[in-house]
């Protein structure tokens, strides 16, 4: 691990040093005879041989731009690797903090080597290249039902909360500037408001990276996360508004009103752009059956296009891309092949991971600069005001919104919402975009301080606080079978009663949308083959197809056992999986929260188009792997890689059903189960490690095994 760190440091010094050389080399080309085509024109470093042909030459300029980019990405990825290998550190320090520290280190090294400021994160490259993958990833894996259930509250926080914060911070800062006339006298009200608008916004990248390691209950998670996504519209508008006000000679009431309209337009406009591109993408994916390899490309292209289009029209790019992802997801997943789906998800995860890492490293690097200007009153008051206004905002807003909610937001949750308002790279980029004015450096410094404070202090302490306050966590323990069945029953019951009452509540609108979806959208946007009505039907059709194809089928073998034997834990697990797969998942409670590091697939979407047949070695290795992996697993979110190793299978601990008690249970009988398996393995498709009591001397029992296969093959 130390090797990784030194390697990454060396790599970082590399571009720094290389950066030194080009200016020195430039005058050379004029001296070179222009005979030799390959490197003279770019004036690279070359050995001054009298011979016409150079045997060895190096031309850095030729590849400089991509080379440096790749090196930065490499540095980021190696840092990330090193982080995950470094033992206890990830449990205490969130990844974002560590990455910023690495960035600081690298920035310091570069500064030391070059004696000039290291490359900073240009706002353009941030907004155009680094931010979209993260937001796309977040939108694609957004827990849809939870999000829409809480949409009202989320919007409430996002719009009103941000407004409250912006105005509060801006006005108070102006007050501070008035008080400290001597040092801060030239900061006008509009400047303060502008600063307030960029510093008040909660940043999705930072929130994501900290919250995903925390496992708070899903509702809380979606509230904070949804707010950070949606407040982009408000932030962008207010920022641009104040900026344009700054350029205007005077500001009238009409302008303010127009600004308000603009907020709505930006938000809705982004939404529409996203919707449009999402539907087009869904439609395109319908026709990709003959060229499956490029299907994932369309997903990325259309999403990015939606982002760029809305940026072009000065609408909210984040809203556009999130809407696009949410819209196209269900149709695309139904249309494209299983492998393409996996590719899409993996690429999304990979890009967003790289982006996030790069952002944080650059945040660290950009801190090392010459342009700092410090002012104690300004910086400290900004920090204080950010905290205070956020806290009061959350309290007030929640007091109002709780009256309309079924599940009230408790005080503990409110505290976490307020405390979890992390600022990140968006503020940073925005502050660089301000038109130059005397105190701009002060703003930059203050922004950096606020970001570092929130990410480090708040980011590191929020996890212990969550535990201290005993905030309701994600349910770790797997529900028992009866709980699961009964809760499904209750879901159906409640939905039915709502229908009887004619309650136009969420269920009603959801049903209406589902009907519209089924009748028009699905028919239009999904390839005929894949239009199966329910997941259960799809399973059934797949079964039929299998049987028609006439694979190796022996009739199902009757289980000779009586029914009163207590079930083994593996069987429990398989039962649980069967239930989650097959019970009509009304509430979609099993939808896992978003996670950067693991691929959680939606529990209800049965991707059973994978061939159910598996070669014996594959099956055995798979089962072996999962069992040993379970034994190694600690409570870490980023063990998705372990699961991924088992053939990209949807891990059995997916869908927030991971639990240590069950795993430990499984370890003990695992050994015995395996032994039994190896003994009894006669046929070539022995996948079900689950039920050693099923005597299967010869052949396979497709129907009976099938349901066990169904979760095995993931």
């Amino acid at each position, binding site marked *: 691990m130390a090797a990784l760190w030194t390697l990454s440091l060396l790599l970082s010094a590399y571009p720094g040093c290389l950066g030194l050389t080009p200016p020195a080399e430039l005058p050379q080309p004029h001296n070179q005879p222009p005979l030799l085509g390959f490197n003279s024109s770019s004036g690279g470093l070359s050995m001054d041989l009298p011979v016409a042909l150079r045997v060895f030459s190096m031309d850095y300029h030729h590849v400089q731009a991509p080379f440096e980019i790749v090196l930065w990405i490499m540095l980021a990825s190696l840092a990330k690797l090193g982080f995950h290998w470094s033992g206890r550190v990830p449990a205490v320090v969130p990844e974002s903090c560590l990455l910023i520290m690495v960035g600081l280190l690298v920035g310091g090294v570069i500064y030391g080597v070059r004696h000039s400021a290291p490359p900073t994160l240009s706002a353009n490259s941030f907004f155009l290249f680094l931010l979209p993958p993260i937001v796309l990833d977040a939108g694609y894996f957004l827990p849809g039902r939870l999000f829409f259930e809480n949409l009202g509250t989320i919007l409430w926080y996002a719009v009103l909360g941000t407004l409250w914060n912006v105005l509060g911070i801006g006005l108070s800062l102006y007050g501070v500037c008035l008080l400290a006339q001597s040092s801060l006298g030239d900061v006008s009200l509009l400047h303060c408001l502008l600063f307030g608008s960029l510093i008040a916004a909660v940043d999705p990248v930072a929130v994501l990276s900290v919250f995903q390691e925390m496992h708070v*209950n899903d*509702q809380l998670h979606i509230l904070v996360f949804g707010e950070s996504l949606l407040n982009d519209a408000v932030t962008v508008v207010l920022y641009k508004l104040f900026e344009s006000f700054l350029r205007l000679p005077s500001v009238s009431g009409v302008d303010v009103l127009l600004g308000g309209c603009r907020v709505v337009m930006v938000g809705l406009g982004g939404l529409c752009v996203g919707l449009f591109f999402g539907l087009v993408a869904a439609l395109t994916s319908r026709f990709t059956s003959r060229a499956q390899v490029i299907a994932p490309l369309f997903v990325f292209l259309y999403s990015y296009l939606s982002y760029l289009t809305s940026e072009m029209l000065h609408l909210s790019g984040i809203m556009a891309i999130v809407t696009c992802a949410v819209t196209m997801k269900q149709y695309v997943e139904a249309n494209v092949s299983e492998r393409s789906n996996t590719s899409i998800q993996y690429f999304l995860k990979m890009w967003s991971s790289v982006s996030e890492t790069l952002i944080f490293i650059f945040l660290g690097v950009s801190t090392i600069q010459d342009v700092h200007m410090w002012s104690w009153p300004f910086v400290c008051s900004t920090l204080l005001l950010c905290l205070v206004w956020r806290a009061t905002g959350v309290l007030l807003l929640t007091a109002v919104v709780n009256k309309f909610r*079924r*599940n009230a937001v408790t005080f503990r949750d409110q505290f976490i919402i307020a405390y979890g308002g992390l600022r990140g790279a968006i503020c940073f980029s925005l502050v660089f975009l301000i038109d130059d004015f005397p105190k701009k450096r002060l703003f930059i410094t203050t922004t950096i301080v606020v970001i570092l404070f929130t990410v480090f202090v708040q980011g590191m302490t929020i996890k212990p606080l969550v535990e201290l306050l005993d905030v309701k966590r994600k*349910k770790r323990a797997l*529900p*028992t*079978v*009866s*709980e699961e*069945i*009964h*809760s*499904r*029953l*209750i*879901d*159906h*019951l*409640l*939905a*039915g*009663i*709502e*229908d*009887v*009452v*004619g*309650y136009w*509540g969420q269920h*009603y609108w959801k*049903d209406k949308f589902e009907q519209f979806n089924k009748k028009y959208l699905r028919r239009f946007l999904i390839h005929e083959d894949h239009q199966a009505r*329910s997941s*259960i039907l799809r*399973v*059934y059709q797949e*079964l039929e197809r299998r049987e028609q194809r006439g694979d190796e089928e022996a009739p*199902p073998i*009757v*289980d000779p056992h009586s*029914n*009163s034997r*207590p*079930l083994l834990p593996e*069987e*429990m697990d398989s*039962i649980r999986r*069967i*239930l989650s797969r*097959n*019970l*009509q998942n009304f*509430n979609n*409670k099993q939808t896992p929260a978003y996670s950067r590091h693991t691929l959680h697939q939606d529990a209800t979407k049965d991707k059973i188009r994978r061939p159910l047949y598996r070669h014996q070695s594959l099956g055995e290795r798979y089962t072996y792997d999962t069992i040993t992996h379970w034994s190694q697993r600690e409570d870490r979110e980023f063990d998705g890689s372990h699961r991924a190793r088992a053939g990209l299978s949807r891990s059995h601990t997916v869908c927030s059903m991971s639990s240590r008690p069950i795993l430990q249970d499984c370890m003990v009988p695992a050994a015995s189960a395996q032994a039994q398996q190896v003994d009894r393995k006669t046929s070539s498709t022995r996948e079900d490690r689950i039920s050693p009591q099923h005597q299967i001397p010869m052949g396979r029992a497709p*129907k*009976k095994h*099938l*349901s066990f296969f169904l979760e095995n093959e993931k």
Partner: protein
Amino acid sequence: MGSRASTLLREEEIEEIKKETGFSHSQITRLYSRFTSLDKGENGTLSREDFQRIPELAINPLGDRIINAFFPEGEDQVNFRGFMRTLAHFRPIEDNEKNKNYSGDFIAFRLYDLDRDDKISRDELLQVLRMMVGVNISDEQLGSIADRTIQEADTNGDNSISFNEFIKVLEKVDVEQKMSIRFLH
């Protein structure tokens, strides 16, 4: 129209329903208009067909059983009082008011317990499971699931789930999933 007039809700009735179920005045009138809109035969009672006409209920896997819950034992028609009584089980109540028998848990229990003997037997459980699960699970697996369910809940060893045992299991179910519906004011 003559038949209509007899179905109009009188003030005293509203008061009585209010006392019995705890709904507010406006909620009762609103639910009454819903009742009448469902009542296609305009005779002041709802039959099973009236319920089955609700489209979303038709696709609900437990739709028939839910409809059953509205009808008292052996009857085929339910009047407004009965309608309200069933709905009252789902009124959001404060924790201190909680009455076990008048809560949604009771209706849930009734969904299982068709023969109303206050016990969920293995067969009844199997039936409901089969309705919820669908076609692709074999009977033995379903059987073992049912067995497991009973095993987990059964404390007195009679191989069936009584109402109290059922309540205990439900308590462990996620609290967020409140067994109540927001009736608009």
